[in-house]
């Protein structure tokens, strides 16, 4: 018997503080369920909003850059001094890009129609142009899948894309017509029209294979839409300039500068909005929690009257705040990722990728806010005698 009692005493002597401490924490949460839940709820909302805003802020650049690639090329390769580019240039560009963008080659010559009128004829890879220059309004793309049909000379001819301004001059009734370049004739059929509002409207586009076999001229221009941030695009440019010395690599400053401006302003607006929202959410948590802690001044006074040290009291409330902050942050983080993903899907038609790097920031921020809102009322209460609080004054 005495053996057992000694054991109990020993076990109590060894671990009284921690078990009591934990029990106080748990009881505080369980007994005042209503207030604890509302404090946790405020914390979860704040953390969710903060996570969503930070995630969006990090991701919006990539999302908008993708939108800006619809403006087409941001890099242009031209042969030095107007010369054609060497035959293998396109595959060199493709390997330099390695999937980080798209390149489309163009060859241009001035040919003559059957009544001797000069007209610009361009050779283009239609599949690539379709992806690069999405603003082209094309009634029907020439089919590239069925080359045998176009080889079937005679009345059919090679399918071409005719600019809307060129159409009435070369083929008013949409009939096949002839183009001649340095004495060689190409019989073509309009497959569709192209409208862009720019130089393309006055041109005729033939497929690149037809263009090279007809004129013997290699493409002189490769338009490149490189994806990524400004530094990534600059890196692609230096790489292209090094691997293809025969070409002049030029940035399309018009697009690049406009993009940089719009992106910068949007991110700045987003940052201002994020700061405002996070501040509001943090203050919401602060006021809720401070009210909660202040409400428990009786608990505080009883603990103090029973002889709890300042350190223990501070530790108790701090641990409680930290636990609340951490729990709220983790749950809020999950909700926030959901909100960001939903906004991404609703607005950009692509989900915002969850950034795990945001979690430590949200966690640290949440715990900082909860700690402040616990410590502030405690430091106010510390100066008051427990008796005064317990008397309810």
């Amino acid at each position, binding site marked *: 018997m005495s053996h057992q009692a000694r054991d109990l005493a020993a076990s109590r002597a060894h671990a009284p503080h921690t078990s009591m401490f934990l029990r106080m924490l748990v009881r505080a949460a369980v007994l005042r369920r209503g207030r604890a839940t509302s404090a946790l709820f405020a914390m979860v909302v704040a953390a969710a909003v903060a996570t969503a805003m930070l995630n969006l802020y990090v991701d919006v650049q990539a999302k908008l850059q993708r939108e800006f690639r619809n403006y087409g090329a941001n890099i242009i390769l031209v042969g030095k001094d107007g010369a054609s580019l060497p035959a293998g240039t396109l595959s060199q560009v493709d390997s330099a890009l390695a999937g980080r963008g798209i390149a489309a080659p163009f060859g241009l010559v001035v040919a003559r129609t059957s009544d001797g009128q000069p007209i610009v004829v361009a050779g283009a890879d239609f599949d690539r142009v379709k992806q690069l220059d999405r603003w082209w309004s094309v009634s029907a793309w020439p089919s590239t899948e069925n080359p045998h049909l176009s080889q079937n000379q005679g009345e059919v001819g090679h399918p071409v894309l005719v600019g809307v*301004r060129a159409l009435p001059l070369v083929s008013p009734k949409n009939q096949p017509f002839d183009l001649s370049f340095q004495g060689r004739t190409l019989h073509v059929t309009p497959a569709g029209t192209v409208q*862009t509002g720019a130089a393309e409207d006055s041109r005729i586009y033939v497929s690149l294979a037809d263009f090279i076999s007809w004129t013997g001229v290699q493409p002189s221009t490769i338009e490149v839409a490189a994806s990524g941030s400004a530094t990534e695009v600059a890196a692609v440019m230096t790489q292209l300039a090094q691997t293809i010395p025969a070409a002049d690599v030029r940035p399309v400053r018009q697009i690049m500068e406009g993009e940089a401006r*719009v992106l910068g302003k949007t991110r700045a607006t987003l940052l201002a909005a994020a700061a405002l929202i996070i501040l*509001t959410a943090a203050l919401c948590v602060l006021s809720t929690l401070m009210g909660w802690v202040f409400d428990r001044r009786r608990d505080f006074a009883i603990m103090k009257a029973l002889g709890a040290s300042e350190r223990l009291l501070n530790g108790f409330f701090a641990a409680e705040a930290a636990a609340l902050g951490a729990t709220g942050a983790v749950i809020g983080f999950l909700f926030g990722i959901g909100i960001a993903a939903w906004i991404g899907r609703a607005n950009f038609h692509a989900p915002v990728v969850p950034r795990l790097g945001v979690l430590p920031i949200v966690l640290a921020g949440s715990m900082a806010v909860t700690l402040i809102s616990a410590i502030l009322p405690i430091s106010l209460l510390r100066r008051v005698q427990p008796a005064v609080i317990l008397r309810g004054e």
Partner: protein
Amino acid sequence: MFVRLVYESFRRQKRRKILAGAAITLGVTVATAMIAVATDIGDKINLELRTIGANLVVTPQEDSLDLEIGGVNLKPPTDGAFLSEADLPKIKGIFWHNNIVGFAPILPMSAVIQHDGKPQDVTLTGTYFSKKVSFGNEDFVTGAKTLYPWWKVLGAWPDDNSRDVLIGERLAAKLNEKPGNTISISGRQLRIEGILSTGGAEDDEVIAPLSLAQEILGKPDAVKRVYVSALTKPEDAFARRDPKSLSGAIYDRWYCTPYPQAIALQLTEAMSHSHAEQIRQVAQNEGAVLTRIEGLIFLITLAALFASGLAVSAAMATAIFERRAEVGLMKALGAGKLAVASVFFAEAALMALIGGSVGFGIGSALAHQIGHSIFNSQISISPVLLPVILAIAVIVTFAGSAMAIRRAVSLDPVFALRGEL
């Protein structure tokens, strides 16, 4: 008695009232600022997108085909039709004249530079740099400088009435010319005012004032093309309908919406023998970018409104919860649930109105500051929004207080007074 209760409550519980009032003020501040930014962001980003350059082009109606390769026009410059320079100010007279950010006419031609005694063919383009144009009583300045912000000039921009020119940087490097030098172009001695760098075809050209180009070409008043930069509304299905097929009121609605198509039609009407069209690369894509950014800011504004609503509710709930002893006392003295609730609601309404007005003021200032520091322009908030914001503030405050008030009035006064619960 009711008024006195409310009045005394404000007089005696300053700390609590200030805390709750501060929460409402902050919430309304954030809401006002975000609503102001959200309503204005479209215009602001639209203006930023205009830095990508012109989105409309006006060409002569009966023009022959362009023979343009790599920015060099191979067509004889006197060929084809021209627009009249005298028609240009009319661009500022169209229905959507306030949406015209700028325009620049161009007149390209081939010219001969005498360099070291050898003649050399170049393209010379006449344009406005920063020209003052008047329409009616209105004066405005337009030209390449406003239309193409990515044009960088080493040296200075020439004056539009001078006989000074800009030369492209690749051409300058080839000829080894510097600003201040004089070159001989088509028999005229012209001073180089600056070296132009654009990253485009202009780097190989000579850019001259329009009047000088007209003189060299021997065609006064002639303009080949006009590039127009206009603020437009993103194109939708209605915009793409053929205006000729629309009737009466529907046509008016189409015409009076700043679609690229509608502005193009108005430009065609304003200038004789012209045809205006959207430059699809610019016009089509800016709509997409604009829609995305507007949508993003709209969703974020919703988040901001939600967060501020929650902050207000939380503050009100805390404030009322702290006063349950007071409720107990009122009830013990015989006040009914309705009487107690109406005191709280009256206080909440009063605080919402005061906090809302202050928050509206601070929020407007904040929106102004955001507009100033990010977009270098004003974000104005219309006073019409004040009643709307105040109504929202009152509703949110009521909603936030409702739960707490219901709990407070249903308390047993005995427990409340003893401080239990």
